[in-house]
Structures are given as C-alpha cells and as structure tokens.
C-alpha cells in the first residue's frame, strides 16, 4: 500500500552567502492513520521539512510525493483542490488566525474547502465542539481567546478541510506547559480518527513520544535516528539522540541536573534507522 506521504532524498537550500543547506537529504514516510514525530533542535531543518512537504518551499533535490503524485509548489495560482488534502497547524497561535474575522468564518473556510472536494458540508460549531470549545465561540474573535484555545481553533480549521495529511509545525511550543500534552493528544486523536496521517514536528521529545507511533530525530539537516517511538525513547542508539535525551531536565523534584553534551562536540551524521 502506498504511504500517504513519501519524501525521498529531500534537500532544501536557502539562498545567501554562503547558501544554507537547511535540509541535507532526508527520507521519510507517513501512512494513513499514522503519527510520525519529527524532533530536533533549532536550525536542524525540521520546520523547513514541513514547508517543503506543503509546497511552501521548493526542494533543491529529491521528491515529495503525496498520494502518489508530486506536491506542486505553491505559487501565485490557486492551490489545486486535490492538494488541499494537506493541511497545517502553525506554531504561533497569535499569527495563524486572521485577527479581524470571527472564528466561525475561518473554520467555515475549511469546511468549504472540503465541500469543493466533494465531501459533506459541515458546521463550524460542530468542529469547535470536537476540539473541546463551546459552539458559541464561532461568533467571537481570535483575540478573545488564550493561546491554547486559539491553537484548538486552528486545529478545527485545519480538520474542517478534511485533510488526509495533517502537519503540525511546532504546534504546542508556544503554549503553556500544562496544555501542551493535551493539545498534542487532541491532534493525534482527531487526525487518526478521521484516517489522516499526522506529521508532528517539535523540539520537545518528552511530549511527542506520547503521541507518536514513530519518531525521526533530525540533526543538521539529516535524520540521524528513526524508528518506533517507544523504542527510541527507551533505547536511543545514536549519540545525538542520547545527548538530546540526557539534556532534558525532568520535573521530578530530584534536583538532578541535565547533562550538557561535551563542549564543541559534533555528532556523527550517519543514521540509525530501525
């Protein structure tokens, strides 16, 4: 069975002096109903991967294939309706919703997108309930909601378009810690329920491993380790993955200091794929 999303040998280079090789040859797949967590620190290229998958950034090399066809870059023309099966939830809950339109109207846009593809019509209120908000929220404006609630609205809008592939580009990073796990779980459950695949990008392994089926760890534009989420969490093999895990301070009250990687160390780029 063809996976929903297939990325092969993807390279993305940003122009400049010197040009920046943000993504240096990665392969990944996401199947229907599956959650792939893509983790890494800043500058590793994970956000660039999200944009390349959506067609927001052109690949310098390699292919991005969605449901068997290559993903066309998003230019000035209208997005072809088939590609609206790919939707994204962005990092900043304060920038991803139109500040001057009521929330319901924005979710309704998502619903209309799905209808254009032949799906059933839906009501914004219904989607708001599915993300745990009140139907009445539809009449209100984004600035009336907290960050966590805005993110739920953004999720509702994305899901209203009935995507086959949902991409979360650091969707929980800007939220209060107490809501991060909850919103991540919400995204997983709603995506999987509707049969969509979820590509969840984050720098926070501790939350991602709870909701992901598989994990891929990125470092300097490459995937250095990938495999089942539990396996990687319990038994990381690549030195970078180990360093990443060792550096996370756990809120267990023990006063254990996190371990910094050795000064100036450069981790090997060879991948451990399981």
């Amino acid at each position, binding site marked *: 069975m063809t996976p929903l999303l297939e990325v092969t040998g993807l390279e993305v280079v940003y122009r400049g002096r010197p040009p920046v090789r943000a993504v240096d040859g990665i392969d990944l797949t996401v199947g229907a109903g599956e959650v792939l967590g893509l983790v890494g620190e800043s500058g590793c290229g994970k956000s660039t991967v999200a944009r390349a998958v959506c067609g927001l950034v052109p690949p310098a090399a390699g292919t991005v294939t969605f449901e068997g066809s290559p993903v066309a870059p998003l230019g000035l023309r209208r997005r072809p309706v088939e590609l609206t099966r790919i939707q994204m939830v962005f990092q900043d809950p304060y920038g991803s919703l139109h500040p001057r339109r009521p929330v319901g109207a924005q979710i309704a846009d998502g619903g209309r997108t799905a209808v254009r593809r032949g799906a059933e019509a839906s009501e914004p209120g219904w989607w708001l309930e599915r993300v745990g908000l009140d139907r009445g929220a539809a009449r209100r404006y984004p600035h009336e909601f907290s960050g966590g609630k805005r993110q739920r609205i953004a999720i509702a809008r994305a899901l209203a378009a009935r995507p086959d592939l949902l991409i979360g580009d650091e969707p929980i990073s800007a939220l209060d810690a107490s809501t991060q796990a*909850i919103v991540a779980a919400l995204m997983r459950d709603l995506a999987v329920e509707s049969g969509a695949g979820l590509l969840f990008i984050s720098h926070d392994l501790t939350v991602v491993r709870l909701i992901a089926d598989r994990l891929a760890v990125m470092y300097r534009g490459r995937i250095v380790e990938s495999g089942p989420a539990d396996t990687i969490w319990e038994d990381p093999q690549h030195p970078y993955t180990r360093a990443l895990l060792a550096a996370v301070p*756990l*809120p267990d009250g023990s006063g254990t200091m996190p371990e910094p990687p050795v000064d100036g160390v450069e981790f090997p780029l060879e991948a451990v794929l399981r």
Partner: protein
Amino acid sequence: MTALRISGLRLRIGEAEILRGVDLDLEAGRIQGLAGESGSGKTMTGLAVMGLLPTRARVGGTITFGDRDLLALTPRQRNDLRGTDIAMVFQDPSTSLHPMLSVGAQLTDHLRHHLRLDKASARARAVELLERVRIPDPAGALRRFPHQFSGGQRQRVAIAIALACSPSVLIADEPTTALDVTVQAGVLHLLRDLAREMGLAVLLVTHDLGVMSAVADQVAVMRDGEVVENGERHQVFTAPAHPYTASLLASLPGAAGGVRTLDDVRALEES
C-alpha cells in the same frame, strides 16, 4: 541569611490587579524558584524588585534589601543599586544585548561606570568574567559583537554583564527558555555553579518546571498574582500542598504523578 525580602507586594496597572500580595524571601547562596503559567505575575514580581515596572504601575507592600525598602527609594537611589547590588538576566539574549556595541564595550562600560575602574583594569576584569562564564577565547571575544555568538554564548555574556559588579541578588527571568535544550543544560550548570561560588541570592523565574526541578532549592508557585505554594523543591514536586500545583504537575510527562501514557493525557482532557 535573607538577602532580600518581598512582603505583601501588590501591583496594579490601570484597571488590572497584577500582583495581590506576594511574599518571598531570597537567601544568600540559594536559588528561589518562582513558577507559574503566563499571566501569573511571576515576571512582574522580578521587574518590581529591579524597579523596571511600566510608569503607569502602582505598587504597594515592601521589598526589603539590607536595611532599606526598595519601593521607598528615589529613582536615583534605585538606579545606583541596579546592576551593582541587584542584577537581572532576561529571557531573550538577542534583544538583551546591544546589537551595535562590542561585547567588550558592553562589559567595560558597565564596570567603569559602577566601579570606577580605569580602562586597563576594566578590560582585565572583563576577560576574567568571560572566562568565568566559559566563553572560549575571552580576550578575542571582547572585540566581537553579539550577532557573532550563538544564542547560548550570548546568554552567557548577559550573565557575565549581570555579575560584573558582584551583586548579591540575581533575578533570572526565563534565562534558558529561548535556548535549545542541549544548550540550556550548559547554561543551567553555569548558573548554579556561579550562584554557589558567589553566594548569590537568586530568584529564578520560569514556567519550565523541568528547569525548576534541576536548579532551584526552594520553589514558589504563582497563580493570578498570588503565591499559592512555597516550599522546599523535593516537597513541592513530590507532595504538592496546593491543588493547582498538583494539577500543573499532573499534566507534565516526567513529573512524579505526571502523565505517562496517551491514556493518561486523555484522562486529563476529560477532567
């Protein structure tokens, strides 16, 4: 020894009551954590100690430092203390350092103004400080500009500037939040080591309970402008007295009693 005592701190900005009576003690050589979510008032507490509140702010209560109430001092007296006896490190190193001055200038200006050192001594002390915060090639670093350093190194420089005049109190407002986790680990070690070496009384303000757990000796939890719990770190994390603290911990993977599986998270959402 109590270096700084905050008693009944109240803060009102316009119509909003930001702080509703905060009590906190900072002890020399110990790190007092101040945790809370956005809007809890933790950052404002730190700013109140430094005297960096917006002009429309109306403050009540006392902040006792030595034998004086900081809130009763004139702006000029406050200014004399700022940077010398009480220092602060901010969250974002890319905006807390002047982008157009060399690191050396930012360090020595500070030193020469407050400690009245001559150029050469200031320079020597600056190199010493950069060594202390573990910046490689400290002498060369003096000539470089902030954008030429990584985020973690910039934060170390900010710490060096803060500690230049050997303050007794350090307010660290989300000092590692903007850093990658691997970089954060190094900076946390630095903060803790320096605090111990210099006998600093540190107020560590952060929403990250993992950081709090690693570094703080004492942890206070704020909600809606009040301190709802304040106790010894291990106690607060393993046997929180206040239900709010318990609920915060329950939603964190990795906390004692925190979520461990997806089902745990789902159970949280229902409640």
